[in-house]
């Protein structure tokens, strides 16, 4: 299992580099950083889905609140056989289902349009609330960035998730400590993040976002928690897997040159 996930994440990183380089724009840094978590989510038995039936009623709902990480998400969907691998290089091109940020109505897997930070989490709370109203067992997973938490609307959503005791909601935060202009702590202090989240009534779980055993255990723990929503803080490294991109905020929203891409792919192949 772990080897399968490692291999999938490696292939996803290769896809992220290829897609964003072909597009000439996009967000490769965060996408490389979250690849292990998304691989575990889709291929580690965490998320319930049917590859051929995106709107299957028994599915778990996935909301990419940090919509700019969609290269990694699209790559995970391809690994999970939800979309064809060859479609990945159409990212950001005219007429593509793989829009620059997810748009509902393009890929059937997109539950809601995102890309404006701090909104997807509120939508995820609404879905979880709807499931509770009908006593349905479906879970809701919401992917968030750490810089995204600077949007006040995130905290409105956390308050509501806690107020309505949405234990069917798993929030996970890509805690790479970086955002477009630099370190999160330099731009707007987030720490003590775990305490902040837990004071909002969330069950906080800390895990290494590059250790599959820890990732799977964290998701399992969240699923087993009753009476409150869970928030997993995944410690990650932006640009993970490509040495010259690692932990550099400059790679938040910039594509690689052809030369850089060749170098990155060589490294990822090792």
């Amino acid at each position, binding site marked *: 299992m772990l080897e399968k996930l490692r291999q999938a994440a490696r292939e996803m990183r290769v896809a992220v580099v290829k897609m964003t380089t072909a597009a000439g724009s996009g967000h490769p840094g965060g996408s490389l950083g979250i690849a292990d978590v998304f691989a575990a989510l889709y291929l580690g038995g965490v998320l319930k889905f049917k590859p051929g039936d995106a709107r299957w009623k028994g599915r778990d709902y996935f909301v990419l609140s940090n919509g700019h990480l969609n290269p990694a998400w699209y790559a995970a969907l391809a690994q999970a056989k939800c979309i064809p691998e060859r479609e990945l290089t159409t990212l950001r091109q005219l007429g593509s289902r793989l829009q620059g940020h997810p748009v509902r109505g393009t890929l059937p897997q997109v539950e809601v349009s995102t890309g404006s930070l701090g909104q997807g989490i*509120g939508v995820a709370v609404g879905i979880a609330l709807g499931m509770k109203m009908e006593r349905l067992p479906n879970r809701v997973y919401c992917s968030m960035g750490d810089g995204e938490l600077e949007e006040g609307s995130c905290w409105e959503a956390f308050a509501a998730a806690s107020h309505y005791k949405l234990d069917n909601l798993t929030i996970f935060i890509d805690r790479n400590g970086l955002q477009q202009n630099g370190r999160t702590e330099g731009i707007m202090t987030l720490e003590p993040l775990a305490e902040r989240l837990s004071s909002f009534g969330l069950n906080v779980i800390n895990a290494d976002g590059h250790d599959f055993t820890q990732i799977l255990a964290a998701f399992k723990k969240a699923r087993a928690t009753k009476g409150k929503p869970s928030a997993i803080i995944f410690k990650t490294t932006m640009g993970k897997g490509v040495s010259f991109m690692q932990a550099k905020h400059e790679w938040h929203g910039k594509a690689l040159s052809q030369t850089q891409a060749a170098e990155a792919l060589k490294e990822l192949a090792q």
Partner: protein
Amino acid sequence: MLEESTREGFGRGLAEAGEADARVVALTGDLNDSTKVEAFAKKFPGRFVQAGIAEQNMVAMAAGLAIAGKVPFAASFGAFLPARCFDQIRVSVALSNLNVKLAATHCGVTTGEDGANAQMLEDIALMRSLPNFTVIAPCDGEEARKATVAAASIAGPMYLRLGRERVPHVSGNGAFTIGKAVTLHEGSDVAIIANGVEVAQALEAAKALAAKGVSARVINLHTIKPLDENTLVKAAAQCGCVVTAEEHQLQGGVGSAVAELLAERRPTPIEMVAVRSKFGESGKPAELLKKFGLDAKGIERAALRALARRK
């Protein structure tokens, strides 16, 4: 003959829609009584979501509830919805084309004593600029009830503009069809196109104009988007001049919508009754309508100006 406010009609319509369809749910942010969601909340407590004073999250949650298969109505004051949460409305609701209904009460200067911040005058401009959205501004309580029931039964994002003050029942007992303007008074010299509280004022103006020998047609344009193009173009062609009347800023409102249409399809002199780039202020609703030239007298004056420009 003051009867019912459009927010009260909305409250009745919401309870009725909730009765007819179990998927209907309602949200508000600590404004149960003010938005008239109260009746629904009492009748269907399990289908009512208290969002707290957090309109951005309320709209996002409404989008999520729509994804979960519900028909959510989110209600607040126009000053907070759409004004405070326009980004959520634009991306989570409109770009996602979700079945979310937004109800904004306390729109316009007739909100009265609460003053400028509370008197939303820019909402139509915001909402009619969004793809996928249907935008409706009923003219009285009964029409608001019908519009709410209609909104619940048709899929897609919709915006209902509602007011605080009681207004006379002028819409009659006919059917309400989204997107179909209603001619309330026949006339051939000038067409007055109004919605919301301005419909009653327009009817009063038409009476005064008749006494002066001017035959004014009054059209209740309850749906601003999509526009009933045929009714409007026909009115412009048959009357030869047009007056628009709205309790909203001039920029981006009903006057703009009508002018956009007629400029392309049937260039016609238009006089616009609207708030001219000013904020409201405290006062009694009737005093404010007069002060901003939105009363029957203001419409009558605009009609005479339009007539003078008619070729």
